């Protein structure tokens, strides 16, 4: 049982390291790293503090603590993935508008040049 929590602890440390390294190398923007960092830290704290996890488990009525941890992480990641879809949609909108705008400007430059 507890070995499972050790695994998640190690995983969250790996995640944390990955995000920090990516940040340092500017592979990820700060504003997009915050949610990953929070998720990793939360996962780490929960896997290290068995009492807290047990309390949540008793309170929610989930059969056992590791399952609680997985449910929590699962939910957090689901929310984050959804957020990414929202962000991607915004980027797509901006990108479409930009592409159209550039095409129109190019068109007008060309027709002025031809006069």
């Amino acid at each position, binding site marked *: 049982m507890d070995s499972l929590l050790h695994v998640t602890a190690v995983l969250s440390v790996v995640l944390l390291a990955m995000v920090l390294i990516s940040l340092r190398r500017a592979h990820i923007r700060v504003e997009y790293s915050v949610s990953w960092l929070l998720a990793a830290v939360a996962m780490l704290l929960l896997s290290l503090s068995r009492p807290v996890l047990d309390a949540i488990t008793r309170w929610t009525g989930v059969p056992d603590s590791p399952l609680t941890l997985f449910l929590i992480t699962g939910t957090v990641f689901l929310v984050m993935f959804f957020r990414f879809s929202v962000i991607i949609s915004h980027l797509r*909108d901006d990108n*479409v508008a930009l*592409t159209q705008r550039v095409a*129109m400007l190019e068109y007008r430059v060309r027709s002025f040049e031809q006069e």
Partner: protein
Amino acid sequence: MNRASGADALLVIVPALNEEGAIGEVVRQIRQHVPDVPVLVIDDCSEDGTIGVARAAGADVLPLAHHLGLGGCVQAGYKLAYELGFEYVIRVDGDGQHDARDIPAILERLKSTGCEMVIGSRFVEENGSSTGMVRGLGIRFFRMVLRPILGKPVRDPTSGFVGVNRRALEVFARSFPLEYPEIEALVVLQRRRFRFEEVPVKMHPRLAGRSTITPRKSLYYIVHVLLGVFVNILKYDGRPRPGRGG
């Protein structure tokens, strides 16, 4: 073409993706049947010679820097037409399926009725050669779905042979679906209480190439468009989003 010439100027737009085999003839036909009307081919980043062929045939070309999909491509044309001051825009497909001889009838109907959109509609069902089985079922399905939404029947909701006036242009410049635009556009108009009419037209088989809507994609098309329709009905009318929504 820098501006619309005259108070009720018409622009013909032709969205095209890899249509070098057909686009030249399409442009020539349009210029023959509606001379003095500028033709704008919007190229959705074709990988063939579409742009060159279109220019050689006498069209202006609006070249998109990367692929946007049919809706984004048509919307680029609407935006430009709106900015240049055109009163009417008629969209003709670049594959030769639409007959340029029908353009005057669509324009006439736009002018005489003052309605925002006129659809060139193949009232008589085509045979299987150009409308596959799945596609035919899809059209029938959407007729059923759209009827209560639009409050009147629409015979050919997937037709791309569509004329719009400046009021519709203004709306579409702000809000137009990105991918399969025809059906969603009808719902966008309906939300503004705009009117549309249908005019019977001939539709030919494609001059060259293949339809981008293959039977396999038809199912995706149906789900995608159905979702789009309901999103448009439920849409929150807040911040106008560029490119999509609004």
